[in-house]
């Protein structure tokens, strides 16, 4: 038994050496999850200091427009890098008019031109949003029952993700406050946003959970899935088979090498998230480690099953990609799960990736005990059974 394991360990060493000496594999299996974590991590921790480059074009001379401008300037998230305001321009032009150089009508032209220029810069990606207060903004009209009214025009570029949503919600907040000030009444209905994950949850732990699960997943469906078919093709497995080495030893050795590398990757990712992005360390480290181990065994098993049913390395690659992208799709990466029909929702709960992400999220956010994770352990256990059964049944040396 000890000799059996010793040989498996030695094989695990050889397999690890091979994986690490392959630059392409190393970049994909280790570099990619790390890069994704770092890039997204940098983004999430910056949401507090996230700033949208904003241009404010205020053509109105009504008092309420100054209040809007002031409110906008006080919002940290909007960085007003260009502004053209009628009152400022008026001042400049008034001074000019005194010296008898420019007619005051030029102000209007200059502001029109300011809007044009701002929109051009928005199109170039130089600006994130353009806020325009038209000339009549804030004018008192009978339609408004004698109160100042008007539209704030928000220009956005839809191709640039969520910047439009963020700007809109900021402006909505400003408008709500100003409306209350104008009417002099507190609005009866209000919206307060709360997170189910609890108030202490930082976006980094969500990002971390997702990408670390992805890293383990890739180690299985891209790493473990293709190595054995490749060795079968080159005849390397036949050579091993000529030695007194059992299929079990080959399996243990190979899975062990990927397993150690996967857990090492997870450790590095955890350290990065904690140290660089101030993610709180999971309270229950033992449970975290154990859950990671069981998840890794399952995801590598998935790769093992794929390696068994594939006739060639390229076929294994294709199967791996199908499983990978299907899991991401069902995991709600492209279309949120809330848009799924019920049947898809049910399926998505039982794909291998879901319990891993759920489990990690629970451990990081709620600090659960072992029993709280039983549903996840159940699904993972089922997949371990399925994958290794398929893998063992389809295993061959050549």
């Amino acid at each position: 038994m000890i000799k059996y394991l010793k040989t498996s360990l030695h094989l695990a060493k050889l397999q690890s050496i091979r994986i690490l000496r392959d630059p392409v594999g190393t970049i994909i299996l280790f570099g990619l999850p790390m890069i994704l974590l770092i890039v997204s991590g940098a983004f999430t921790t910056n949401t507090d200091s996230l700033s949208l480059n904003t241009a404010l074009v205020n053509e109105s001379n009504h008092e309420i427009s100054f209040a809007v401008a002031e409110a906008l300037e006080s919002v940290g998230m909007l960085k007003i890098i260009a502004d053209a305001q009628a009152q400022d321009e008026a001042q400049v032009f008034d001074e000019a008019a005194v010296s008898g150089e420019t007619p005051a009508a030029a102000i209007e032209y200059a502001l029109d031109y300011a809007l044009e220029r701002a929109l051009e810069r928005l199109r170039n990606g130089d600006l994130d949003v353009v806020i325009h207060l038209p000339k009549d903004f804030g004018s008192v009209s009978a339609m408004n029952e004698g109160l100042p009214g008007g539209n704030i025009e928000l220009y956005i570029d839809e191709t640039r993700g969520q910047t439009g949503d963020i700007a809109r919600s900021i402006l909505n907040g400003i408008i709500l406050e100003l409306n209350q000030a104008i009417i002099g009444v507190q609005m009866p209905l209000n919206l307060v946003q709360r997170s189910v994950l609890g108030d202490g949850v930082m976006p980094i732990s969500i990002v971390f959970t997702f990408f670390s699960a992805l890293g383990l997943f890739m180690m299985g469906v891209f790493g473990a899935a293709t190595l054995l078919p490749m060795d079968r093709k080159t005849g390397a497995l036949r050579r091993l088979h000529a030695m007194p080495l059992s299929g079990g030893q080959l399996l243990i050795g190979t899975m062990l090498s990927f397993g150690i590398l996967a857990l090492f990757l997870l450790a590095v990712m955890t350290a990065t998230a904690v140290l660089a992005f101030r993610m709180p360390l999971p309270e229950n480290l033992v449970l975290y480690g154990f859950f990671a181990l069981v998840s890794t065994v399952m995801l590598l098993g998935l790769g093992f099953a794929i390696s068994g049913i594939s006739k060639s390395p390229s076929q294994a690659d294709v199967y791996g990609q199908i499983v990978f992208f299907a899991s991401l799709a069902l995991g709600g990466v492209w279309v949120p799960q809330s848009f799924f029909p019920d049947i898809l929702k049910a399926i998505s709960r039982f794909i291998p990736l879901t319990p891993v992400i759920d489990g990690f999220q629970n451990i990081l956010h709620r600090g659960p005990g072992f029993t709280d994770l039983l549903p996840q352990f159940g699904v993972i256990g089922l997949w371990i059974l399925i994958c290794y059964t398929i893998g063992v049944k389809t295993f061959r040396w050549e």
Partner: protein
Amino acid sequence: MPKSATSTPTSQYMVEVHELTKSYGSVQAVRGISFNVERGEIFGILGPNGAGKTTTLEILEALRKSDGGMALVAGYDVSLNPEEVKRSIGVQIQSANFFDKVRLQELLGFALSVYQVRGMTPYQLLERVQLQDKARSYPEQLSGGQLQRFSIAMAIAHSPELLFLDEPTTGLDPQARRNTWELIKNLRNEGITIVLTTHYMDEAEDLCDRIAIMDQGKIIALDTPEKLVQGLLDSGFTKTREIRPATLDDVFIQLTGKELRD
């Protein structure tokens, strides 16, 4: 090591094959062959492509299951005790790669550990096949001749009593071939029994104590090289071409020298 009652390594022969058969689908690769290999001899299997040489070796190496017949290798029945057979023999496989990106010394280290060999180092094994300066190379960086020598090093890591070599000199230049012959003879002189296949008649003549000629899955002749030739002459055969005291092979060696080139 547990030994089953039916097979103890006390057989008179190193290899005993009786009515062995093997088919791949409709292809009958081996059709009921029988032969024995004596302890300490070099036994050659000759035959055209597809004759069934590799298939026969693979059955004896416990890499492949036969359909019928019986084979005792180093005293063990290959179908009953494949594990013991594998421990007793060294195998050099025709056209199979080693793990890539693993150094020769690491691969040999692994072989030594699988067979639980003590008191032997990868370096000593490399020395035996004159590859000591390639210890840190990867197998994919070796020339054809070096690779063949390395596979022999891997095959003898555990000092087996029986060595199977499948076309050990195919694709090698004359120097490398002769060098491999020397290596094989040295191994035989150490008491290792060798079963090899080859397409080269000069090789069979130079190396083998006895030869089996296979064709279409059957052994059609089996004897010492001398007796096979004598038998042919006795049947009234005369060569049409004049026999020269030297061959082109000798010319090549004379011109390019005997040392290894790679």
